[in-house]
């Protein structure tokens, strides 16, 4: 084995025997080291960065990312550009309340039934959407990844038990459950987030688990075990990096699901009334029977939702296409 320097071998074996004083055949160590070296990733984030590089090649994914970036910028800079507070009743020059005013130079998105600026609400809605989306995604990602890793890696009864729970949990219809939970707990942002996380870890755990299962079969894992690596090290150092892209994909999709669910709940009237999320805006429009007439009130939150969710979807789809070799183009 001229591939590995002696010093590297010594250093690596030292690392592994730290973890476990396993009795193994010294003559096969080199062989194991070679397999292990060939398989492992250079760094924890390597596969992730690789995937991102692939992503930017897809036109629609780039469009999606551009849209999201634009929304983010508007959301952050918004209040600086449009100083009108979202919940202040605006008055016309003659002193009356400016209800349901059509778009004009002064109020580019018009006002709603309560004489609030639609534009300001829209901007606030961006922030809420991002807040909900990102926090839910992070929470879901963490839970799914941990559960998926543990379940997939250890297998056996633990795996069975977790998967049974997941299966049953998956049969619970999403929105009805969300409705009842929020009704029971009370309509606030934290509760909505709680419910969303409760609902979306199910699929994520499954997805991560199957990715873990594929990784487990790879020879370099067996080599690492032979070299005396502990379960913890294998899980975090070897399997996790390769599973991260999939987990990341699920997190991306959960952003969309989270925004969708929050919007749906708000629309029904179970959202946090103190926040002007897009769903809430549409709820108010609906309640005040202004849908048919006040298009300026309806369109911005609708388009916002559509754009945000589509962008995330494009990114997710591009990701899936790049990583699924069977989808690559076969002409005619």
């Amino acid at each position, binding site marked *: 084995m001229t591939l590995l320097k002696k010093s590297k071998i010594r250093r690596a074996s030292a690392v592994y025997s730290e973890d476990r004083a396993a009795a193994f055949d010294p003559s096969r160590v080199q062989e194991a080291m070679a397999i292990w070296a060939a398989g492992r990733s250079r760094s924890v984030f390597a596969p992730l960065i690789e995937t991102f590089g692939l992503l930017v090649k897809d036109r*629609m994914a780039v469009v999606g990312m551009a849209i999201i970036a634009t929304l983010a910028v508007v959301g952050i800079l918004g209040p600086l550009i449009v100083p009108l507070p979202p919940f202040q009743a605006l008055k016309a020059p003659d002193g009356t309340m400016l209800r349901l005013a059509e778009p004009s130079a002064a109020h580019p998105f018009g006002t709603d039934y309560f004489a609030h600026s639609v534009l300001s609400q829209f901007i606030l809605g961006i922030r809420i959407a991002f807040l909900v989306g990102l926090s839910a995604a992070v929470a879901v990602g963490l839970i799914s990844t941990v559960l998926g890793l543990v379940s997939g890696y250890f297998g056996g009864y633990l795996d069975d038990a977790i998967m049974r729970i997941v299966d*049953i949990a*998956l*049969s*619970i*219809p*999403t*929105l*009805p*459950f969300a*409705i*009842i*939970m929020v*009704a*029971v*707990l*009370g309509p606030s942002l934290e509760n909505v987030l709680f419910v969303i996380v409760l609902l979306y870890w199910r699929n994520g755990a499954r997805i991560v688990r199957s990715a873990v299962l594929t990784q487990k079969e790879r020879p370099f894992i067996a080599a690492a075990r032979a070299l005396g690596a502990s379960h913890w090290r294998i899980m975090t150092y070897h399997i996790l990096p390769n599973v991260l892209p999939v987990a990341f994909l699920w997190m991306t999709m959960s952003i969309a699901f989270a925004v*969708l669910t929050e*919007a*749906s709940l708000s*629309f*029904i*009237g*179970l959202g946090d009334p103190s926040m002007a999320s897009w769903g809430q805006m*549409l709820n108010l*429009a*609906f309640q005040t029977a202004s*849908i*048919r*007439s006040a*298009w300026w009130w*309806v369109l911005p939150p*609708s388009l916002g*939702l*559509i*754009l945000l*969710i*589509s962008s995330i*979807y494009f990114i997710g*789809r591009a990701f899936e296409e790049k990583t699924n070799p*069977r*989808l690559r*183009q*076969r002409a005619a």
Partner: protein
Amino acid sequence: MRVYLARRIIQSIIVVFVMVTLMFVIFRIIPSDPTAMLVERGMPEETRQRLLEQWGLTGPLYVQYVRYLTNLFQGDFGLSFFYSKPVWEILAPKVLNTLWIAIPGLLLGATFGSVLGMFVGWSRRGGAIDGLGILLAPPFVTGILALMVFSGFFDLLPGFGMRTPGANPSGFAATYLNGDFLQHLILPVAVVALTFIPENLLLMRTGVLEARGEDYLEMVRAKGVSEFRVMWHAGRNSLLPVITWLFPSLAETVAGIVLVEVVFSWPGVGRELVFSVTRQDMPIAQAGFFLLAVMIVASNLLADLVYSYLDPRVVYK
């Protein structure tokens, strides 16, 4: 085959059971007082207790649970707090209404979506679909936009309820089999179909894209059949993965149906569920949830049946 079916049915029953228990637990641990609906502020304690007994809310939890289950088996969902009538009486007609938009909507969406997906997946460009964004909107957004356009701007179709207000028909035929009802049916069904199309389309597209490279397609083409038939082969082979992925996502479609019902004020189970929650009407909320869950479990079961019919290989395992 029968063993497989039996196993699936038992699984479904377990799931339903779990959900029923879940409902029970959730409603009993809520911080707010379920009787707030019933009880007026100044009522004396004994009257309140008697009311509680009447509604079955007394006694230790496990007793309540047993009573709850036995009632459920007998089809007794209890009395609605809001309507003061048996829950089943309130919900039964609404189930039918929901099915009226659910079944046609889903069928239409599945058919359109699959066929479109097949064409898209087969086309030269390898199925790059850009304009799909509009269909990815949350169901209520599509609903609202549809309402705005067809009912607001163009005033073509009614967007409220099941019939023109004022009419009060009775009996099945009078209620459902007339032009007024059909007119009111169009928009909700169309929106449900629209929400269901993207998923179908994408799954079918992926399936066809994958199938495109298969060997047997070459053979089919070598036989001298039309390009359309070759595509059909690809589609038929993709049907399986599509269905595998599709029916589990039915749970999401129920969400869409609930929202559509709210947007169009369609008197179905979903809308009732939403109302019951805001009214703190616990029995209806429970029952509504139960019914929706049962519908989903039933459709999943159906899906498995269809699946085993479509893939001859599964049956012979």
